């Protein structure tokens, strides 16, 4: 178990105008792991994702991915290093076809230039053909090949979630970040989704970091869980350890009181 971590986050924090959204956050991910990041609403989970993917630059601490320091790197560069993500509120390219959504993710894996495309040189045709074939093969895995010409916005909600994961995977990540992938799904869809996640982890040899608001959901699938509250890491361990951690119970209890009033 003493392998080199694929992602090592140490003492990362960020300030928004004096407000500490995340403070002293630590995380070690080992290759092949499936780790959950949970916490009540507003705990800073999505902020952690934004820090990892370069949307925000941390004001303190270090993020090391694959032995390389990546804090402050632009999001598209982070993606090219091998971290890819989905969004809490699905962010597809709505007017583009399902196929094109995946092709966009393949963008940086192709190399034909603007010039070659404008003048339709050989390299353009070769590059485009290859992208098309790869993207189609990919859609088949996710059973989206039948709707490949459909606009992304016309897919049913579950399909949109699936497409977003497919798109994130097409970018060729080593580490996949999933931000509340089960949000808005019914129990059956959630179950299918969890199976899909286990499947792609095997198939693509991935490390996965999963945000979930609902604690019960992650318990069954994640090996280790980190719990965040008010920007601070309050617990870390196996699902069992976390479940009985007094601070975690307190954090979630507090929230239930709040939400029953709202």
């Amino acid at each position, binding site marked *: 178990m003493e392998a080199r971590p694929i992602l090592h986050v140490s003492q990362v924090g960020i300030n928004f105008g004096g407000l500490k959204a995340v403070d002293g956050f630590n995380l070690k991910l080992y290759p092949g792991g499936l780790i959950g990041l949970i916490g009540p609403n507003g705990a800073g989970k999505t902020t952690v994702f934004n820090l990892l993917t370069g949307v925000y630059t941390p004001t303190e601490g270090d993020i090391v991915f694959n032995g390389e320091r990546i804090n402050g790197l632009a999001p598209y560069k982070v993606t090219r290093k091998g971290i890819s993500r989905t*969004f809490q509120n699905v962010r597809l390219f709505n007017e583009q076809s399902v196929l094109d959504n995946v*092709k966009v993710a393949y*963008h940086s894996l*192709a190399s034909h230039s603007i010039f070659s495309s404008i003048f339709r040189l050989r390299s353009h*045709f070769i590059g485009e053909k290859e992208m098309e074939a790869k993207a189609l093969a990919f859609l088949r895995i996710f059973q989206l090949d039948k709707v490949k010409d459909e606009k992304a916005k016309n897919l049913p909600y579950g399909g949109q979630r699936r497409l977003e994961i497919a798109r*994130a995977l097409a970018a060729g990540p080593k580490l996949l970040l999933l931000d509340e992938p089960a949000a808005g799904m019914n129990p059956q869809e959630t179950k299918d989704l969890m199976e899909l996640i286990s499947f792609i982890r095997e198939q693509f040899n991935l490390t996965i970091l999963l945000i979930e608001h609902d604690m019960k959901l992650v318990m069954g699938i994640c090996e280790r869980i980190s719990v965040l509250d008010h920007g601070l890491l309050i617990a870390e361990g196996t699902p069992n350890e976390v479940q009985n951690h007094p601070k975690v119970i307190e954090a979630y209890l507090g929230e239930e009181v709040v939400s029953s009033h709202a």
Partner: protein
Amino acid sequence: MLKKVSTFWLAIVLAFVFYGVVQLLILNGFLNPFYTNTLIFICINIILAVSLHLVIGITGQFSIGHAGFLALGAYISAIMTMKLDMPFSFALFAGGIVAALAGLVVGIPSLRLRGDYLAIATLGFAEIIRIIFLNIDYVGGAAGMQVTHATTWTTSFLCLILTIVVIVNFTNSRHGRACISIRENEIAADAMGINTTYYKVAAFVIGSFFAGIAGGLYAHNFYIIQPANFGFLKSFDILILVVLGGLGSLSGAVISAILLTVVSTFLQELPETRMIIYSLVLVLVMLYRPQGLMGTREITDYFGNWKWKRVKGGNQYGG
């Protein structure tokens, strides 16, 4: 694949047949200079509309300063032919290149801005370009500059075909898909590994290049160019072509360019009426049909189901 490629060549052949017929009519005197001039105007306006369509419709960057690049192309090409005795074709190219360089200089800082801030910045840059020409005595200041008549049906049609081919080819490639993804969701495009700044600037530079070409054609069709021709109203004239056609639809931009050029030719004697109609159309389109005439569809989509290949963003006719 063979079938798709042949569709492309079929379109090119048809375009040249159309060109030949019109050219024949001009040579035989069936089309008087008034009609010929209207056709040239249509070509210029389509080039402007399609080049702005790449920036606004495809990449989703709201620029309202397109007239600035038109002005650059017009003045640079006029300087080439009138002051430096260069051939017209070279002058056109030079106008396009300088406009593209200006697009680079303007685009790099301002394309970091979003939405309405970008709009205002491009408007500001266009005004600065105009004021610079206003203050240069070499090009006649406010009085303007005399330019010979050199734009013909042939040159404007060739430029038009070149513009459409380049922009369609760009759109239907991984580069065009990257631009569309920025329009659709910039944050997600970034997260998918797209260098968003690069593509925004690239689209802006290509759009500026063709606006510059249009400027050269415009200048050499008019006998005189003045800074006052390139104010905000000119940018607005181009903007309405793209908006009316449908943001994201190239054929929509072409259709509305033809439509509005014809309308404004008829209203030449009544400039106020023309402006009232234009602005009313713009407001009504936004209130009742914000997707414009065509939405993001292309005219080829309508026959797409049986025979023709779709030229919509993302599908390529050659791949």
